[in-house]
């Protein structure tokens, strides 16, 4: 079989094979070889990348969080000071607004979903579209056991802001033990541990996909570079399915950087601040190891929920309640207890980034190959402001972005950030968002 530019490939071409006495056929994606006028461009492949989100509730105190950028780098403010040890890995994104176009500001909801879905919700509690990180997961997560691993440190499975579609919410793990069991106990064993029995049904599925392999090689040998890239992308996705199946049929090959953790004990999982810190710390480490073991390349983490319910043991008021009820101290000019909760959230963020930075990978660390996007639901929670929602990135995304930047937008739509995250992750998208938040303007200041 030969496909030359003078002999275009039929759009109806199928790869055919036999399996268990039955004929099977696999269709092909759109290829330039089917349309010779388009043939001949080069191929560019993106290196592997991990992407994830990290969320905290109830924003920051105006004037006490946003750093300035001087010759010595970030000048952190009291509420961002816990980030001192990890600041070399960070970018700060400020001055981006959720623009509602006459739609209501549903408190603690509109900001998050304007940012994540590009759509300001019309009805309270009704999300009108999937969130952008799921598009990234679709891009990056096809070759791993888990397309995404999500957890909340609060113990409440409702605390998630990742929606595959308007109707489908991704459910997070709520305890370190459950996260461990999902990643390490159910499908990933230390070499030589236990008796391994592959599922015959899974084996048969792999056989079906393998049956066309020889014909595929013949096809590839006769295509132009661009079509080979397209075909490679297509079969990459097929191969990723195979690989996910293989993970279930073979004793796992554990990467060098992969370390098998001990199964964590039972811990209280609730909104108590000390418990949240402890659970978050344990689950962050498990997640980092899961990525080192290439079990997933996507994640969503909730440290504190929207309208933060964090509270200190023995106290009646939560972080959220403090934001509305606490007196502004006349001497210092801000709400002291509320600010302490912001600092606790930032301590959590620092711990999470450090957990990724602690895992060696290649010549650097796991964090170097991550793009972590952190944000809150509001800027100043006292009035539920959705202008200037605080956002950060951590990691260098495998060299795709630089760090140490403070980007101050001029009231630009917050969707610029979601668009940029998707583009960095290789999602083929030029415009994103709706109405006044529709944008094709990437945040180029952070690009390498």
């Amino acid at each position, binding site marked *: 079989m030969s496909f030359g530019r003078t002999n275009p490939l039929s759009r109806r071409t199928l790869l055919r094979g036999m399996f268990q006495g039955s004929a099977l056929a696999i269709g092909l994606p759109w290829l330039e070889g089917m349309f010779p006028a388009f043939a001949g461009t080069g191929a560019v492949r993106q290196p592997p990348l991990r992407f994830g989100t990290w969320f905290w509730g109830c924003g920051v105190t105006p004037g006490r969080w946003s750093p300035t950028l001087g010759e010595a780098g970030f000048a952190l403010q009291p509420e961002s000071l816990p980030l001192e040890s990890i600041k070399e890995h960070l970018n700060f994104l400020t001055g981006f607004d959720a623009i509602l176009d*006459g739609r209501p*500001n549903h408190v603690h909801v509109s900001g998050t979903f304007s940012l994540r879905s590009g759509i300001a919700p019309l009805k309270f509690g009704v999300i009108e579209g999937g969130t952008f990180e799921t598009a990234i997961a679709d891009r990056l997560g096809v070759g791993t056991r888990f397309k995404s691993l999500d957890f909340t440190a609060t113990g409440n499975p409702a605390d998630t802001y990742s929606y595959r579609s308007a109707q489908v919410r991704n459910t997070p793990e709520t305890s370190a033990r459950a996260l461990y069991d999902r990643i390490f106990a159910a499908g990933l064993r230390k070499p030589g541990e236990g008796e391994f029995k592959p599922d015959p049904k899974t084996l048969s599925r792999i056989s079906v996909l393998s049956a066309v392999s020889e014909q595929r090689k013949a096809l590839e040998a006769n295509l132009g570079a661009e079509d080979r890239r397209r075909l490679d992308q297509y079969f990459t996705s097929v191969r990723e399915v195979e690989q996910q199946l293989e993970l279930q049929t073979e004793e796992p090959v554990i990467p060098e950087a992969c370390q098998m953790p001990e199964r964590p004990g039972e811990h209280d999982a609730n909104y108590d601040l000390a418990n949240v810190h402890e659970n978050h710390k344990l689950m962050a480490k498990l997640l980092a190891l899961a990525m080192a073991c290439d079990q997933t390349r996507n994640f969503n983490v909730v440290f504190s929920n929207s309208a933060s319910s964090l509270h200190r043991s023995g106290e009646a008021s939560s972080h959220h309640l403090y934001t509305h009820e606490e007196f502004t101290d006349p001497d210092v000019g801000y709400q002291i207890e509320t600010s302490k909760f912001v600092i606790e959230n930032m301590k959590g963020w620092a711990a999470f980034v450090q957990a990724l930075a602690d895992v060696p990978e290649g010549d650097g660390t796991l964090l170097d190959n991550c793009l972590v996007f952190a944000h809150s639901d509001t800027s100043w929670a006292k009035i539920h402001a959705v202008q200037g929602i605080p956002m950060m990135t951590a990691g260098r995304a495998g060299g795709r972005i630089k760090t140490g930047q403070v980007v101050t937008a001029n*009231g630009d739509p917050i969707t610029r950030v979601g668009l940029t995250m998707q583009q960095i992750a290789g999602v083929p998208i030029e415009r994103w968002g709706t109405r006044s938040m529709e944008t094709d303007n990437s945040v180029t200041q952070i690009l390498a």
Partner: protein
Amino acid sequence: MRKSLLITVAFGAAVCATACGNSETSEPVKASASEPVEATLVSSVNQDSKTIGLAFSYFWYDNLETPDDCPEGYAYALRDLAILGLPEEKQKYLLQPENRSTYYKMGYALSGKRMREHNGTSICNIPDAYDDPPLRTVQSNLANGRDLDGKASSGDDVGSCGAADFTAPDGRSGIDNQLYRVMGCIDSYRRDAEFAGGAMEDYHVGAYRDGEITTLMEIRDVDNRMNDDYVEVGVYSSHEPTPYDSEKKGIGHASLTVTDNTLWHNETTGRIENGVLITEPFDLRLKFGWTGRPAEYYVKDTQIHLNLAEDGTAEGDLVGYFDLQYAYWHSFHDEQGALQVANGYTCPAVWDALHKYADGYPDPETGKCTAISTAMKLDAVPAFVIHPPKEELVKYVLDTRDYYGVELEDIAVEGAELREPKGAGGPPAAAKSRKNPETSESKEE
């Protein structure tokens, strides 16, 4: 000198707002669908234009703050009521900084208790169900605002329903601004208060900034921007956002479309004296929801004074009589009862104070005033005000009966259809009308 802005329109779509229509050089550009053309977009600060377009960039009560306003202290919050009945020693204990976490929570606890006592209905929907201590109000005689009725009332005349006028800081007498008297000692309506200081202003102005509210203004038939004895004025709501920069300053020259709901189209006439627009009194209705509430701004006998700056911006004030129910719904009511808790007042106390200080539109049968005087400050930036096609215009009123717990007659507008409020939360599970005798009977003494 003519100030115009040239832009290239890629595919010949003529970009022209209302300011284009009255200038010789501002004819809409005709272009074929395929040829790029250069179009002239007349700036909204075009000095030759007969139409001035504006978008509100700031709009908030013109509340005076002096140390003498509230000699009794600021208004009781619900949490204050919750501890009033406790022994003094216990009150002192709860107010110590290290114990305030409990004190802060007590307002929500009392709000929840009251809701349970009324089958889940927000106490703001049945404000006459409790006799809270009277609202602490402004006791000084100074206020910003204007004389709406041409009288310096001492409160003895029939038309003022017992409300005494203020004097302005500049000495003008007969200042009608009784809504300031009501809200002036609620600390969320003041900027100098420790608890919730400035919160209400930030909420309202924030709603403009995040695009939840947009108000447009159009001054037409302007022959002379400094002095003109007759102009036409329109004030409109819009669903499109006024742009703001990162410093939260309004950005001018946006093209913004007027809402299709004619209920929120307001027309009047006026004049320009020494660069100041002065409108004739008119009834003003605007969409004015903030943080998701389906509120409206309904002010009778509205007058606008607006200083028209050469750069196209404007600043001034808006005064009038706020319909009493709308004043309550817009600024104080909360479907869940949380707004009162977090902002330093109780719905029953405010409801009573509004009625006590209402000073306009006496009911011909009862003699009781049905509106309360108010004064607001406003800033505006130049804008291209675009009107939707006539065939798209509708007239509707938001069906807020369940939201506010009221009857149809309280919200109905002649010729307007009822529409479900977009984006509002559902009605309380057991919402009942304030006029329901059952709830009235349960009023605590």
